[in-house]
């Protein structure tokens, strides 16, 4: 169970990118908190701003406005030097395992690097720890001597996770970390992550496309559309309690293994609008079958439903 102490707080964070004399609104006014031992899921279509949020939290991308606070310390406007000490507290794991390894570095060296660099422990000590780390992610010690190309995608992803937790981060961000893996390996990684978050009492942000998978490893899920969070849901009861029309569209798009082949697919009409245009109304208005006049000129704010459930919609689905 997540301990209630808030670890990470994102407050009114926005990100604009300058594009050809225009502004691209990648993330608009996003707020949420993450507690120790908690995993929050972030789901939404390609380009809606998920990775941009991840990068701002990791400090590799400055925010345009808003603040991010870790353990009570606001670090969004810190100087580079000051931030360097901070950086280790937030670790990321990415989608494509192989691209984050340098081909000629042995797995052992790769695992030792952060401890040697950040904590100046001796090589031998770091290597002994690396062996423990491998065991933690279910890999044999002989992998220390191997090169990246000698490992499968799932094994590499385990190594990437082992390295991320080597320096005891407070926050772990997984951006599509299992997207390239087949379902059985994806499952193993998901289980591993849940164990690590629980054991080490860290906070985790889990970004993904597959709502069923994201739900299985998180306590809460944030649904994002065009730079905004449109709904926060409790993972356990998500399917019974969702209220936002876009969440419904996401759920309708899932093909269950035991689906009925004769059932028609419900399709979401149209394409996502351009993030280069400022939208006055609800970002989902053009594609929403429940859209009313008000939705076209007024932006729906996130409002509290109950518990951890919030929704930004003028005509939330009744249930």
């Amino acid at each position, binding site marked *: 169970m997540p301990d209630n102490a808030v670890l990470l707080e994102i407050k009114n964070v926005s990100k604009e990118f300058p594009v050809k004399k225009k502004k691209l609104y990648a993330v608009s006014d996003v707020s949420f908190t993450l507690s120790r031992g908690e995993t929050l899921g972030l789901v939404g279509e390609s380009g809606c701003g998920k990775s941009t949020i991840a990068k701002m939290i990791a400090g590799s991308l400055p925010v345009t406005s808003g603040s991010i606070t870790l353990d009570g310390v606001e670090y969004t406007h810190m100087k580079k030097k000051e931030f360097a000490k901070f950086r280790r507290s937030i670790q990321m794991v990415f989608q494509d395992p192989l691209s984050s390894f340098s081909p000629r570095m042995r797995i052992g060296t790769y695992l030792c690097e952060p401890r040697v660099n950040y904590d100046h422990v001796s090589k031998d000590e770091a290597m002994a720890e690396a062996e423990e780390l491998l065991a933690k992610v279910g890999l044999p010690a002989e992998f220390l001597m191997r090169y990246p190309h000698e490992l499968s995608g799932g094994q590499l992803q385990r190594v990437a996770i082992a390295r991320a937790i080597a320096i005891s981060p407070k926050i772990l961000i997984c951006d599509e970390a299992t997207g390239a893996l087949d379902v059985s*390996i994806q499952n193993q990684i*998901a289980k591993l992550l*849940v164990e690590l978050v629980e054991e080490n009492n860290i906070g985790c942000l889990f970004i993904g496309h597959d*709502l069923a998978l994201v739900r299985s490893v*998180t*306590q809460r899920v944030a649904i994002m559309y065009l730079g905004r969070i449109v709904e926060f849901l409790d993972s356990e009861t998500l399917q019974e309690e969702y209220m936002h029309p876009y969440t419904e569209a996401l759920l309708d798009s899932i093909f269950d293994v035991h689906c009925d082949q004769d059932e028609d697919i419900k399709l979401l009409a149209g394409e996502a609008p351009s993030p280069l245009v400022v939208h006055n109304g609800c970002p989902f208005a053009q594609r929403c079958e429940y859209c009313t006049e008000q939705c076209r000129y007024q932006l729906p704010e996130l409002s509290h439903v109950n518990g951890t459930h919030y929704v930004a919609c003028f005509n939330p689905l009744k249930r």
Partner: protein
Amino acid sequence: MSLLEVKNCTIRYQNGTSAVNNVSFSVEKGEIVSLVGESGSGKTTMVRAILGLLPPGGKVTEGEIILDGRNLLSLSEREQEELRGKDIAMIFQDVGASMDPIKLIKSQYVEAIRTHERISREESYDKATDMLKRMHLTDANRVMASYPFELSGGMKQRVGIAMGMTAQPKLLLADEPTSALDVTIQAQVVHELRELRDKYGATIILVTHNMGVASYLSDKIGVMKTSQMVEFGTRDEIIIDPKEQYTKDLIDAVPKMGGNRFAR
């Protein structure tokens, strides 16, 4: 007679290991057959061999691949070239990446049609827009006048399917055609594939790691593991009543919306 028959096929790469080991299956006309299974199990190698386009060093060392009574492995390079695009077409995982980024869709599409058919540019253009509309790209003229980067992932993928289907190939091979897409766009592409078969009688072999998509679309499913076909059967035989432990594990591993969660 089946439209496609793969008989005891073994495919090796240069280093000698077999990527596909003694695989047999058949596809009837108008069927959708999916190949599923662990990554690296030989699914892509298998469909590339059918297309006659194995990566360098890859070779079918044993077995036969028979399309409409013709053994594809005994064809000359030229004959194979002719077959591709006309009798067999392929859609790749990321169609966008295989498009020429600095050429309009129009010129890429018209060119592709004219390598197989001796018709005028105008006729090719009409044929192309017709096919785009069938793929529910209603604004076909705008799509034709766009550069690839101006289209969304789902639109590009549908353009790719349209291009593959224009010559009305006997067999359409689709390698992970939806895995680079969002779930909502994936649903659109799955819908188009289904319609191609239901309305136009297309025969499709689909490689996918999405078991839900395979289950929805397929008449038959082949399950691959470490270069072997461990189980091949009708959709219900595989999904509802699997015989092999590996198939059972695979189906169990699929995250399900109402299923158990790992997190507490």
